[in-house]
């Protein structure tokens, strides 16, 4: 009984109209909480002490680490949606992974850029082929590939199914990529190069970091829901234009 109720609830959510109504109710709250968390997180981030070794540049971490975390979480959300597309054929799942791809790419880009800014004083150069950075960069390329695939096809449901396959193949591949990049890096890396990460994180840094991570996560969900809503609207506009063409034909 409860199970069937849960299923009905779930399929209710998959109905785009229900989703739009729900999104309209949730979004203001979600946005407000996100903004509040960002205010607290940024306040904490700028009031805590700087690292004795890295100085103020350590504060980049409060943006860099949450963005890197989101770059991976977003791909997981997309993989779940891809399963939704292929297994349950939810119309909302199609929209969900399409809407998430640009967000994932954006957060990955933030992670890469902040990582590079952070690394500049440490490495003396903007980019090193460090194992972690390189893996994130490959992830970025995968996001862009998925976006390009989505844009290359006119039929949205076919595009959704094909990119879902690509997302899942990529998802399975991520650990393999990570492993091989590590292998490649230790094979070449001379020991003298400073490795990213350094000492374990002190509690002093941990508090603002956790708040920022939470704020970023909520930001992602706010943007994701908005992007899904926009995509639903975009498809409705397209449908209405097709209808308009058909009606005009009937009139004359």
């Amino acid at each position, binding site marked *: 009984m409860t199970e069937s109720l849960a299923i009905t609830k779930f399929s209710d959510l998959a109905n785009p109209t229900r989703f739009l109504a729900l999104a309209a109710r949730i979004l203001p709250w979600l946005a407000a909480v996100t903004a509040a968390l960002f205010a607290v997180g940024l306040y904490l981030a700028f009031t805590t002490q700087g690292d004795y070794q890295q100085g103020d540049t350590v504060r980049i971490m409060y943006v860099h680490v949450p963005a890197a975390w989101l770059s991976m979480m977003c791909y997981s959300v997309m993989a779940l949606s891809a399963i939704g597309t292929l297994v349950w054929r939810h119309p909302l799942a199609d929209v969900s992974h399409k809407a998430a791809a640009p967000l994932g790419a954006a957060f990955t880009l933030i992670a890469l850029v902040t990582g*590079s800014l952070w690394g500049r004083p440490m490495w003396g*150069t*903007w*980019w*090193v*082929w*460090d194992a972690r950075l*390189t893996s994130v*960069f*490959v992830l970025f*390329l995968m996001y*862009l*590939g998925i*976006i*390009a695939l989505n*844009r*290359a096809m006119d039929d949205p449901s076919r595009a959704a199914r094909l990119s879902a396959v690509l997302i899942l193949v990529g998802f399975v591949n991520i650990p393999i990529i990570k492993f091989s990049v590590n292998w*490649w*890096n230790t*094979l*070449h*890396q001379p020991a003298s190069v400073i490795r990213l990460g350094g000492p374990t994180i002190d509690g002093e840094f941990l508090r603002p970091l956790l708040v920022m991570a939470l704020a970023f996560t909520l930001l992602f969900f706010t943007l994701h829901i908005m992007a899904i809503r926009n995509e639903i609207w975009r498809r409705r506009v397209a449908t209405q234009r097709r209808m308009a063409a058909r009606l005009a034909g009937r009139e004359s």
Partner: protein
Amino acid sequence: MGIIMTALLLRDLKLSIRAGGGALIGVLFFMTVVAVIPFGVGPDLNLLARIGPAIVWIGALLAALLGLDRLFQTEREDGSLDLLLMQEHPLVLTVLVKCLAHWLANVLPLVIASPLLGLFMNMNEVGIGAVMLTLLVGSPALTFIGAVGAAVAVTLPRGGLLVSILVLPLCVPVLIFGVSASYAAVEDPAPFLPPFLILVAITMFFAVLGPLGAALALRNGGD
């Protein structure tokens, strides 16, 4: 004549923005090609800095040829090519404007993306600037040469690969002078200006020869 060609330029730019994100795919291809090089040669920053200009140039060359086969093929598929061919105004000019639109929409983004890839290759500021400048000056030549290949292959069902094969050997001079000008900017003894000016000359030469050849091919490829 100004209105006519502006209309064509604007239409082609609009089309490349709306249809399928060709520029995005080109930039993505460029990034991917350059990014896999370190996996082959290893992450040795000194080595990467040394081969950087060449790698970025080769990547840009391959990416610039990527969407070229569609330059006239889309026009042919929907019948627009017939109308472009029938007009009184010179076909050479029509082809030139189409090349220009293609360069603006698909190749200029590569030039803009090239500094980022320069950073990945651990190049210094001067080297990055030199590569960007030589690409800016040299890449139009790639489009003009490519237009000939695109026009020759316009009626072929799978012209894409063939266009690259036809055009790559013709692009060798552009690559040679682009890369040597980039290196000349970084390494002291070699002067920068001579190879750079030759590159400019090559681009101007192909700005004439490319559209002429493409127009000739389109006229003769009619069916």
